[in-house]
């Protein structure tokens, strides 16, 4: 018992040291785009070769679609997304003022579908919800990711960092061990990225589909043989908030292409 407590203390000390030691300096941050090959970069730069733009096109149609008689379309309330949604994706997740709840972008869309449009929300990872996410994300392309801390989300940033540094799963690995301490190295031939969520939702060639940040989280969790949190879980949102803080100021390149 005493010995275990001793080890925990040492571990805490090591962790406290690691907090600063593995922080990537702002000037050395690289997005997934920066780290991928020239061909994939070219595919992302050309809106016509980027398959995620198909989702954007579908999302634009959904933005204007009336969900039923007497029910407003997204555009019915929000108008032209190019104006009303500019910069929105760059500052999500955000706290909903009346309820105090934290919403990520898909969660906010679902809440709107449920509350304002009076329809059953589209499930996470469904084509329709991803399409709307992609369409909204495009309206923030090129804009810097806003700092969640600057918007009073310190508590979530702190919880998210705890998750980022927590070892999970049978393989007993944390996010930080790969993405802060070993980025750039080769994991079975794949370069480990720094995990800056600048491009979601994005088309991943491995998936052959557009997917969300939570899908990426799930992939990592199952990779280390951990039980993923359920879709939309508050843990995922805290983790996203921490990653957004870590990436604050980097430019949104959604909807991106990744290998």
């Amino acid at each position, binding site marked *: 018992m005493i010995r275990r407590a001793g080890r925990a203390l040492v571990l805490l000390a090591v962790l406290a040291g690691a907090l600063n030691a593995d922080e990537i300096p702002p000037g050395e941050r690289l997005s997934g785009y920066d780290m991928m090959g020239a061909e994939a970069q070219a595919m992302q730069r050309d809106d016509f070769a980027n*398959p995620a*733009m*198909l*989702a954007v096109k579908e999302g634009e149609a959904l933005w204007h679609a009336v969900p039923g008689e007497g029910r407003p379309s997204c555009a019915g309330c929000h108008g032209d997304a190019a104006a009303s949604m500019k910069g929105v994706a760059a500052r999500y997740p955000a706290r909903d003022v009346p309820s105090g709840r934290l919403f990520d972008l898909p969660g906010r869309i679902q809440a709107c579908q449920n509350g304002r449009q009076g329809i059953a929300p589209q499930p996470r990872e469904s084509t329709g919800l991803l399409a709307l996410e992609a369409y909204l994300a495009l309206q923030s392309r090129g804009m810097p990711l806003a700092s969640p801390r600057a918007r009073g989300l310190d508590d979530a940033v702190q919880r998210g960092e705890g998750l980022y540094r927590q070892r999970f799963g049978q393989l007993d690995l944390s996010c930080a061990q790969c993405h802060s301490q070993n980025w750039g190295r080769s994991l079975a031939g794949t370069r480990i990225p720094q995990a800056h969520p600048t491009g979601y939702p994005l*088309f991943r060639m491995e998936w052959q*589909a557009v997917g969300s940040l939570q899908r990426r989280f799930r992939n990592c969790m199952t990779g280390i043989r951990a039980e993923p949190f359920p879709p939309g879980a508050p843990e995922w949102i805290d983790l996203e908030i921490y990653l957004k803080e870590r990436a604050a100021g980097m430019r949104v390149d959604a909807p991106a292409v990744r290998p």
Partner: protein
Amino acid sequence: MATAMILLPRSAIRAGDLITLKAMISHPMETGFRRTETGGEIPRNIIRQFSCRYMGELVFSCDFHPAIAANPFLAFPLVATRTGPLEFVWRGDNGFLHREQAMLQVSAS
């Protein structure tokens, strides 16, 4: 339901110009060779054939096979002769059919 995008040259086209047309469509291109976690077969679901007609005349076509990636993207050349309609058609498994149309504007050379 599929979504497709057609890209025509952005610059002005004159008769006789060799131009490139681009067409991309959302489609899973499920190979038929994969299995579910429980070992069940995932049935093949691919686009089999693509064609492009220019003023009704077939100017490009190709067959697709299971090794082609999802959301297939095609780029192919065409000699523009005069202003006229372009029609793009994708056909595939399970009665898949998607059609897109565009008007090619060509000025006299």
